[in-house]
């Protein structure tokens, strides 16, 4: 038989790195082929685009707050004093060919990255994929979500425009609101009272381009290794899958073109958005100054739940005499995300406690098969979502004329009432769906029996 030219490099690698057994295993690893398993990959490919475009941007961005006078292509900012950071971002947008494409693609990729993680997390939650033996995989994933949120916030705050500068002031106030140690914490991170020591910009920069990306990349590796080690979960279909037996598509040749195709599709969508839909037009905001503010300032979407909370909490600091124990931003800025992530991290063990189920699970539940979990998930989600929507009340006032203060009062109640209603509605829905299936199945059995008996 004619020798396949591929054999040469394979032999080379195996003799020097022992690669063949690992390659053989990897090439024939079996993937589940349900579409919802691709959501995690979407996040991964968004990260790849982030790193690629990020490297490009870092080759031009000047992370310095030193003052300079703008003398570039964007006329409305001519002669304006601004930081080098802001000036370099303007240059990326107007002077560097394809610079604006890279900037916008990078920012869209960040927004889509977090959205994909959230979708993936929803799939994990509603199918119970976080149960034994995958708790560690799940915890690693949650850590990546937290890192992604911080990474995005730091990324758009580096530019020192009016919108993100206001957002940094809010971040500072949240730091200060931590009971007892908040003042020290704020001074430690910022180096001085807000706007802080110039070194704070360096800290944000290094965290954004080196520390957090390295952490996320490492966690991705760990996450994928854990997934492969315990193997993907499976939906029960085809009747062939059990807790011990799986059915899947091998990496090569089946899964590879699909995953690679998805990667190019994600990249295509992100570059399409980056070229066609404007995002963060920093030249319109102008440079940040402490004494300036604009109406309608918002953080990126994945922090919208925090601004909603900060706007909803009534105005009070918790004091003991002259000692301020809990400053107001604490509730929305620290406690809310603290509770949400605490519940998420504790989920596998909470479920064990509530259901008494300590078994290994390789098969997934359909959401309707676990009414309690599904109802809790919808309720929890609706709680966070109501808070998130409350953060857009001012734009609702502008668009629809509905009074702002009335909206805030409405949300203060709705945030607690709606999740309770959603819980019962979702649980009922799951049970109805299950019952409907049961009826269908018993009808089919009756028909089959009828045929056997013979008419």
């Amino acid at each position, binding site marked *: 038989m004619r020798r396949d030219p591929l054999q040469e490099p394979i032999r080379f690698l195996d003799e020097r790195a022992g690669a063949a057994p690992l390659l053989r295993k990897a090439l*024939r690893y079996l993937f589940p*082929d349900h579409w919802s398993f691709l959501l995690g990959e979407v996040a991964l490919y968004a990260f790849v685009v982030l790193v690629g475009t990020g490297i490009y941007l870092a080759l031009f961005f000047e992370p310095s707050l030193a003052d300079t006078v703008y003398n570039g292509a964007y006329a409305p900012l001519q002669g304006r004093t601004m930081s080098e950071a802001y000036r370099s971002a303007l240059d990326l947008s107007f002077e560097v*060919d*394809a610079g604006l494409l890279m900037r*916008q693609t990078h920012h869209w990729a960040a927004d889509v990255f977090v959205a994909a993680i959230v979708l993936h997390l929803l799939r994990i939650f509603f199918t119970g994929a976080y149960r034994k033996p995958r708790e560690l995989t799940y915890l690693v994933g949650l850590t990546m979500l937290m890192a992604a949120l911080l990474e995005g916030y730091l990324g758009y705050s580096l530019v020192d425009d009016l919108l993100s500068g*206001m957002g940094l*002031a*809010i971040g500072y*106030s949240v730091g*200060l*609101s931590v*009971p007892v*140690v*908040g*003042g*020290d914490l*704020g*001074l*430690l991170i910022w180096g001085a*009272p*807000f706007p802080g020591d110039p*070194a704070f910009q360096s800290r944000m920069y290094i965290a954004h381009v080196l520390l957090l990306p390295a952490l996320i990349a490492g966690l991705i590796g760990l996450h994928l290794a854990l997934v492969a*080690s*315990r*193997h993907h979960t499976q939906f029960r279909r085809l009747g*062939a899958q059990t807790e*011990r*037996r799986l*059915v899947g*598509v*091998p990496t090569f*040749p*089946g899964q590879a073109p699909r995953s*690679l*195709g998805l*990667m190019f*599709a994600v990249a*295509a969508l992100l570059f*399409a958005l*980056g*070229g*066609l839909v404007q995002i963060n037009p920093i030249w319109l905001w102008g440079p940040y*100054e*402490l*004494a*300036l*503010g*604009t*109406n309608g*300032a918002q953080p990126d979407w994945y922090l919208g739940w925090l601004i909603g909370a*900060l706007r909803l*909490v*009534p*105005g*009070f600091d918790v004091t003991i005499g*002259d*000692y301020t124990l809990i*400053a*107001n931003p604490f509730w*929305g800025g620290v406690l809310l995300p603290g509770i949400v992530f605490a519940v998420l991290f504790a989920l596998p063990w909470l479920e064990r406690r509530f259901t008494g189920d300590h078994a290994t699970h390789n098969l997934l539940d359909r959401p309707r098969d676990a009414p309690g979990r599904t109802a809790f998930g919808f309720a929890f989600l609706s709680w966070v979502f109501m808070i998130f929507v409350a953060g857009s009340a001012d734009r609702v006032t502008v668009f629809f004329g509905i009074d702002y203060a009335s909206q805030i009062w409405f949300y203060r109640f709705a945030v607690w009432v709606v999740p309770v209603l959603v819980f019962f509605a979702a649980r009922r829905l799951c049970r109805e769906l299950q019952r409907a299936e049961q009826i269908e199945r018993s009808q089919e059995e009756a028909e089959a029996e009828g045929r056997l008996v013979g008419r």
Partner: protein
Amino acid sequence: MKLRQWIVALFALLRLRRRRPPSDEPGRLVEAGPPAPRGELAVIALLVLAALAAALFVVFYGIGASTQALGGALAGALGLIAAALIVAGKLLVVDEELPGHYPEPDPSEQESVGRIVAESGSRITRKRLLGAAAGTAGGALGAALIAPAVSLGPVFDPSPLYDTPWRRGRRLVDSSGEPLLATSIATGTFYTAFPQGAAKSLLGAPVVVVRLPEDELELPPERVTWAPDGILAFSKVCTHAGCAIALYRTPKFEPVQPRPALVCPCHYSAFEPATGGQVLFGPAGRPLPQLPLAIDAGGALIAAGGYSGAVGPSWSGVRDEPPS
């Protein structure tokens, strides 16, 4: 007879030697499938188009085309490659659905690991003491390595949080450095001012100045002299989360319109200048610090002292007396 036997034998042989379907071929690792020439053509066409789109991107880049053209071309190239791969995955690749097994944990290996660790300690008699010593050394080293982080900021000295650049007698100037004259402060509008000679970006620097008719003032008794001619100055930094209080709501017809308020655009805390910065609405937990004003001999506005309280967002010591 013999001929017939030969023909039958030949037939039998031919049928046995007919090409077995590839999937029955013994020793195949990957299932075989029928060729798909139409699919191949589709993939090739998509890839060629992708190459053209990529070339178009380079051309656009060279002529300095708009971001939209660049993005469209690059997205087109990537999207066409994606389409090629997806079509290849559906048409050119065998649809294998293979069985496999989930890994089982190995209790004997778990036991071996435990035993290796346990048996390695055969020479140790003071396990607890060694452990405590190692823990102490590790903890101390950890603390030593973390200690330099304190250089990041004045962690043990929160006094900078109380600093402001305002002193008695310091003039109020506008953003271009011109002093604010009391006579040019009108009612029904607002001004931003800074301490003369100080950096504008210090948290305590910017103040918002408004003027109310003196009969509308309801200041606390200790502040009655703080508003000469009804002119009031407050820190422009919101006590909730530090945004600039850049909004002023001032009615033209008091009987039916909302009363004057300084409002923050971030979470819509509203402060009432007439009562010395009390919170009217919103999440702010502290009133807006007021700067006492006076008018110097030249008619310019000057600070008559420090703020009524610490500026900016709250922390544990925000209501304490500032350290001297």
